[in-house]
């Protein structure tokens, strides 16, 4: 006999436009398992003098196979629909009136029942123009009568339990539960046999970009689906559905399986300046994150670190402070280091004339405070960095002028701080000569500081800002500056 293949739902992720989906339905009425000639008097009369009568009859039997190509949401009218819609009085909705108009224009009202007619959504638009081209399209669609008809989403068709296959129930149930999939579209392909029988149901979920089809695509020659209808006697039909959509190159595929954009109000705004705080024109914003982690090796406890920052030329302090001090810290019971864990952020604006070879200097002064509130200098340190992006950490050796016996006694007994221009000591380039001699300068090392620094920057590139009016505010100087900046960045990338 024949083998019945199980039906299952096919789920397809579609990147392209669903409008380009095209199916081919292969439907055949199996009269008998043996191919017998079918007696048809009319056909025999036409071919009365033909010796090849039997052969033609065989061909006619083979022609019971119906092959139909159907595009997505293409309407094919059933015989009962033609009967219904050809009468204008029975057309209530806009869709029904549209079908009626189409039937009138194509003259389908004369068609006997048992045939169906098709409405091409694309050609429908053309009908309104009433040009010759559209008439040609109508005539071609008229020729596509057959046993297959469709219900499209516009019909608002709800298959009843008898007509709906199990997958249809599944889809309906899924629709109830998945309320977020609100914009799904359905399409049903039916066969105009008695009674009308559903062949295929399709559901399209635009948000998921998924097409569900039941039963799945198959091959008529290999695994056709069978329908058995028991009326006065048993009818057997076989059908298959192929996907014959043309493969297209999708230049910009729809964003599938990407993280959803935030539905915040700021995403509706398109101006980058309002979306993000950009630095002023022809400037670069540089942000430095410092962390003074700990101090170790100092002779007194309860030390605090006071820092001063000297900015390079042609930079402006936008946010942060240049002078501050940390809290006073002493070693704990479990360790000998003084933990600070002190973080601060510095934001600078570098002007156009800023030279990246210039350094940013940070000077540290380590001070201890005893229980009597007397301060003592524990050491000085210095850190300099280029304003380049990246992360660095350093251990800074602290230095202090060496004391004599008297100074040592004074420091021990009385405390206090001696005046020492440590900033000039580290970075006074004005007094430097060719040979930098500090022979007479007695310095001792006292302890060390642990510092880390992270730097990142933000450029104001003209190319980043969408220009609605290209003539507004753009001068030749601006263009040349942007060109120079781009060239400089390109060179930096190439030479890296």
């Amino acid at each position: 006999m024949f083998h019945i293949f199980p039906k299952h739902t096919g789920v397809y992720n579609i990147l392209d436009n669903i409008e380009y989906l095209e199916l081919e339905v292969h439907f055949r009425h199996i009269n008998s398992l043996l191919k017998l000639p079918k007696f048809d008097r009319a056909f025999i009369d036409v071919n009365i003098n033909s010796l090849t009568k039997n052969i033609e009859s065989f061909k006619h039997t083979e022609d019971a196979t119906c092959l139909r190509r159907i595009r997505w949401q293409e309407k094919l009218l059933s015989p009962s629909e033609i009967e219904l819609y050809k009468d204008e009085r029975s057309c209530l909705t806009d869709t029904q009136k549209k079908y009626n108009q189409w039937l009138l224009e194509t003259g389908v009202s004369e068609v006997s029942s048992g045939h169906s007619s098709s409405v091409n959504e694309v050609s429908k638009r053309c009908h309104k123009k009433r040009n010759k081209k559209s008439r040609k399209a109508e005539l071609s669609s008229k020729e596509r009568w057959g046993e297959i008809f469709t219900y499209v989403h516009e019909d608002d068709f709800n298959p009843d339990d008898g007509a709906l296959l199990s997958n249809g129930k599944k889809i309906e149930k899924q629709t109830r539960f998945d309320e977020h999939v609100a914009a799904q579209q359905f399409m049903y392909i039916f066969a105009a046999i008695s009674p009308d029988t559903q062949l295929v149901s399709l559901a399209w979920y635009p948000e998921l970009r998924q097409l569900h089809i039941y039963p799945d695509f198959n091959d008529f020659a290999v695994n056709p689906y069978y329908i058995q209808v028991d009326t006065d006697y048993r009818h057997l039909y076989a059908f298959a559905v192929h996907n014959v959509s043309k493969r297209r190159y999708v230049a910009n595929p729809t964003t599938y399986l990407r993280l959803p954009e935030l539905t915040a109000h700021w995403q509706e705004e398109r101006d980058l300046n309002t979306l993000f705080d950009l630095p002023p024109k022809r400037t670069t914003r540089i942000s430095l994150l410092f962390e003074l982690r700990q101090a170790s090796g100092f002779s007194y406890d309860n030390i605090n670190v006071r820092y001063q920052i000297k900015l390079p030329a042609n930079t402006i302090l936008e946010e942060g402070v240049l002078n501050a001090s940390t809290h006073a810290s002493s070693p704990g019971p479990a360790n000998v280091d003084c933990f600070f864990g002190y973080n601060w952020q510095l934001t600078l604006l570098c002007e156009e004339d800023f030279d990246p070879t210039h350094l940013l200097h940070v000077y540290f002064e380590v001070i201890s405070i005893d229980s009597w509130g007397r301060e003592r200098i524990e050491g000085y340190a210095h850190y300099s960095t280029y304003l380049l992006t990246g992360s660095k950490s350093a251990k800074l050796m602290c230095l202090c002028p060496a004391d004599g016996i008297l100074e040592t006694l004074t420091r021990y007994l009385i405390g206090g701080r001696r005046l020492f221009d440590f900033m000039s000591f580290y970075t006074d380039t004005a007094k430097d000569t060719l040979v930098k001699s500090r022979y007479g300068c007695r310095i001792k090392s006292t302890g060390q500081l642990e510092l880390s620094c992270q730097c990142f920057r933000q450029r104001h590139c003209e190319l980043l800002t969408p220009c609605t009016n290209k003539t507004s505010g753009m001068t030749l100087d601006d263009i040349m500056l942007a060109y120079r900046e781009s060239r400089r960045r390109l060179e930096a990338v190439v030479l890296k």
Partner: protein
Amino acid sequence: MAEVHVIGQILKAVDFAEPHLYCKWSLQSGSAWKLVQGEVAGQTLVSSNRLEQASDFAHPLDIHLATASIQGWPKLHVEVYAVNVLHKSWPVGYGFVHIPSRPGAHRLELLTWKVAPLTWWDSVREKFGGGGVGLSKADLIYTGVERYKLQTRSSGKIIIDLNLVFRNFAKFGVEFK
């Protein structure tokens, strides 16, 4: 707006003298930063370890931030508390650290400190489990310019594992490396 995903965990506290610890944490950032999803403050469980001087928290962090500026870079602020058998708790460590400015995996070592006892009586009370001195306002941990009057003692370290995902910064001309 640019976005930052902070995903990770507060792994453990090490080198604390007290055995039973928990910590409160919060994320502080500038006014241009907004929380999109997640929690910016929380509290871990109380943990102790009999084998080593560490308290394992493994407290998850999953924060999604959006920002309109690079100023006010977010900082993770931690307060460590000790608990005694009477369920009395007192602060034993304060600290804060900037979220790293590079995407990827990071292990942070947050150094904490606690307020030094001001008087002899405070020292005795701290020594015998009566609780140490704490800050009256939590924002004193990370604010202030002249902080030298705040006398502290080194406490332990908090180990934090973070995975950072940055989004749209390049679109606004921000370069991290």
